[in-house]
């Protein structure tokens, strides 16, 4: 379980990890990473395939057991699912659950099978479907949804779980541009309005810069750089981590954009 460190509360930190490692056999997938996550901030994790992004999320969620290191949280939660929610890279939607039933699963950690959901549970499910614009699909079977609708359903489930910290692994990688922007705007809104901490793996570095407060760049199981995206994602770092040539350009009256030279 997580270790409780109450002084984190004063510094508005929702989770701090120290020298976290995860080994598969003798290979270190995650190599002594440390960082602190602040309340209400929107974090992104960027890095090449196999750099340890998903492993970092899953180790923090304790889906994978860390080989060494510590994870600190400011308060004691008897049920981890009341503190952290997770949108995995691929959620299987093989079975005919309705959207409402799938979103209600986010409330499972809060009620017993005998009593059933109370009015607060039901309200949170409605709110989550409202926020993700899935309310009109509530009776539809999840197997009949498009990729974007499925993703919004899963995000709604995580929202209904109502945790202070949300982890999302590549939440937009399977969506079209329109829905990518919709989902990222929604996450931005959740961080700003609900004061939740969001950690998400993103591949599009312009989206990282546009939507997130802070990026952690991972390479070979380590966090090699972190901070404000426009400062961190400089041409030198991108060359060394992603092996690409890039530059930030700034057209008139727009935010800077990263372009790549092929």
């Amino acid at each position, binding site marked *: 379980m997580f270790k409780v460190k109450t002084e984190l509360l004063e510094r508005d930190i929702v989770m701090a990890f120290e020298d976290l490692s995860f080994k598969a056999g003798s290979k270190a997938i995650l190599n002594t990473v440390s960082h602190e996550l602040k309340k209400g901030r929107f974090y992104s994790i960027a890095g090449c395939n196999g750099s340890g992004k998903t492993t970092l999320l*899953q180790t923090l*969620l*304790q*889906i994978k057991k860390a080989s060494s290191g510590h994870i600190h949280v400011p308060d004691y939660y008897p*049920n*981890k*699912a009341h503190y*952290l*929610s*997770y949108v*995995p890279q*691929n*959620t*299987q*939607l*093989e*079975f*005919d*659950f*309705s959207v409402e*039933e*799938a979103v209600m*699963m*986010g409330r*499972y*950690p809060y009620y017993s*099978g005998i009593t059933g959901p109370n009015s607060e549970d039901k309200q949170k499910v409605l709110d989550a479907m409202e926020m993700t614009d899935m309310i009109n699909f509530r*009776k539809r*079977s999840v*197997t*009949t949804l498009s990729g974007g609708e499925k993703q919004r359903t899963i995000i709604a489930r995580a929202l209904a*779980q109502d945790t202070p910290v949300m*982890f999302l692994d590549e939440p937009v990688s399977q969506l079209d541009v329109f829905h990518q922007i919709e989902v990222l705007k929604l996450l931005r809104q959740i961080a700003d309005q609900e004061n939740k901490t969001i950690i998400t793996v993103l591949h599009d570095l312009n989206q990282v810069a546009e939507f997130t407060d802070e990026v952690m760049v991972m390479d070979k199981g380590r966090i090699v750089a972190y901070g404000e995206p426009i400062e961190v994602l400089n041409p030198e770092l991108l060359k060394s981590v992603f092996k690409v040539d890039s530059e930030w350009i700034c057209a008139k009256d727009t935010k800077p954009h990263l372009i790549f030279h092929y």
Partner: protein
Amino acid sequence: MISAAKYKWIVIATLVALVLLSCIALLLGPTNLDFAALYDSLSGDSANSQSNGIWQVITQIRLPRVVMAILAGTALSASGSAFQSIFRNPMSDPYVLGISSGASVGATIAIVLGIQGGLLGIPIFAFLGACSALIVVYWLAFSLKQSEQNTLLLAGIAMSLMLGAIVSLLLVIHRDQMESIIFWTLGGFNAISWQQIWIVTPVVIFSLIMLFKYAKDLNLLAMGNETAHSLGINVKKKVAVILLISALSVSIVVAYSGVIGFVGLIVPHMVRFTVGADNRKLLPLAALWGGIFLIIADTLARTVVQPGELPVGSITALFGAPYFFFILIKRSKSHV
């Protein structure tokens, strides 16, 4: 998918159908009876019934069959629903872990050794066979240190193939007993006694209650291990517990009634089409529909070619396989 009120009505209608079909099943057979005789015998008024023979036929031959059909259908369908959620594969059935083939090997060995059926004998060998297959599959899957259900599924398939080969070998070596081995393998309720019912009933009821208790967890497991884990489920432990509970009830049913295929595969599907995938609605209804399905199959098995009798397993396969094709076609259409 459906409202609570509608679900309630479906359950009530199902219960009524179960009772009616049970009564009809009690009346049909080589000696056809009518409702008056049934009433007399069920009310225990055996002195007034036409003869003690009717009472005997109904209470000692037909009633145990009907009860066993309900128990078997219930256990197979509920376990099938659970297995499908756990393996996240709507095409898996209660036999995927090698339970049926293990039982077949056990029963075949018993028959070959000349051990007679009845309360002990063949059923005990079948039960031991099922359990040994299960233990080996578990040991294989978990010694690989993977909690992925796919490993279990593959180990189960490999185990089934190997045990199937052993049954074939024994069949070839002991040609003289081929008929009784094959008849056992096809499954049926023709020699069910009350003593057997008393053994099977508590096990099946226990496993049903436990599965209902785990309905929420099964929903989460159906969404994937990571999702289940992030919503507070200890995946490895829960999968092992649920599989053991359902395997226990399936193997005891198989021990007394042989391998009856397709029930645990298609009944959960029929129910899912009707009430959706939520295990809290699916499990109770699948259990009831499984009972109905096997009452019908067993009644057909013993009435179609009177005075002879067909194996129930072949009836369920005859109806089940085409329905399975129908599911496959429907799935491929809805997943475009």
